[in-house]
């Protein structure tokens, strides 16, 4: 149960700090837990109060003084205390014996110790508290930053997922280009092959024609050469010479006219 837990925790790690008369140097305790007792509560845990209930001289709650102030003023509770003390002593409801002396010694030592070492222990306890709170805060901050980072990453992933369409378009373009390149290569190949075959046929035909022509020319020459008799040769040479002479005369005449 909640209270059982809190009881155990109360009695174990309590560091008692002694008050001082001046309320400026406030005493402190190590922080104890402040749990939700119901498992279904959604509200954030309210912060612990800063200071506890006020007490005067450490053992008398302030409420008594506030209660008596309207009727008896400031000294009322002190007078009440003094009267009670006198009554108790005189009627020996409180008996003075050896234990009184022991109590007085112990009380002196305790009060002296608390007055002297109170603030130091208080500061130490505060420091311990601070460290605990700081550690918890660090864990919380770390969790917050990592979660915020995770949120940003998630948003970025979503943005990336939207860009997938562009990626697919680019890939489709690539594939189409590859196909087109392939088709054109093959078309070229086909053209080249067909051209080669046709060139071969043309070369073949040209060869045929050339060979026929040369053969015919050779045959005609041979025949002509064999048909020229020596007599015909002489007469044709003489004619050529006379023609040349005539031509030379004509040429000379032209040359002298031009000059």
């Amino acid at each position: 149960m909640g209270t059982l837990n809190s009881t155990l925790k109360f009695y174990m790690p309590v560091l008692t700090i002694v008050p001082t008369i001046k309320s400026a140097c406030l005493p402190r305790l190590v922080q104890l837990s402040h749990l939700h007792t119901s498992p279904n509560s959604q509200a954030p845990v309210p912060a612990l109060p800063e200071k506890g209930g006020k007490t005067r001289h450490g053992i008398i709650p302030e409420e008594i003084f506030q209660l008596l102030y309207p009727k008896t003023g400031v000294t009322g509770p002190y007078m009440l205390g003094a009267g009670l003390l006198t009554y108790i002593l005189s009627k020996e409801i409180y008996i003075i014996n050896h234990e009184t002396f022991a109590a007085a010694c112990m009380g002196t030592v305790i009060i002296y110790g608390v007055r002297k070492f109170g603030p130091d222990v208080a500061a130490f306890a505060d420091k311990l508290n601070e460290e605990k709170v700081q550690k918890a805060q660090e864990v919380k901050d770390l969790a917050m930053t990592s979660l915020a980072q995770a949120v940003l990453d998630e948003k970025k992933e979503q943005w990336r997922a939207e860009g997938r369409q562009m990626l697919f378009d680019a890939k489709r373009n690539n594939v189409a280009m590859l196909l087109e390149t392939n088709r054109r290569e093959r078309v070229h190949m086909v053209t080249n092959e067909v051209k080669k075959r046709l060139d071969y046929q043309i070369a073949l035909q040209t060869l045929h024609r050339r060979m026929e022509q040369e053969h015919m020319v050779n045959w005609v020459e041979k025949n002509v050469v064999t048909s020229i008799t020596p007599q015909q040769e002489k007469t044709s040479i003489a004619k050529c010479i006379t023609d040349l002479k005539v031509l030379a005369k004509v040429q000379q005449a032209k040359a002298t006219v031009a000059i």
Partner: protein
Amino acid sequence: MADRIVPLGEKRLMDVKLGELGSWLGKRDFTPNGVLASIRNGHDRYYNKYINVKKGGIGGVAMLLVGYVALSYMWEYDHLKHDRWRKYH
């Protein structure tokens, strides 16, 4: 002044008028469960007021110790009676 009528048994002690004190005591829950509940309630109130704070004081523990001292004195009074200095007061 009063926002709603509170039945007598559930009033807080400081709100009970003197004349109603007897009937108020009669209406309180004295079953074991009720006693336990009141003990738990009182403990929670004291604890949350004086101890479960950021900067507690010695008052929280000191009041408990003083109460313990007083209670143990009362329990031992019958033995201590023999140490009295005078017989008649």
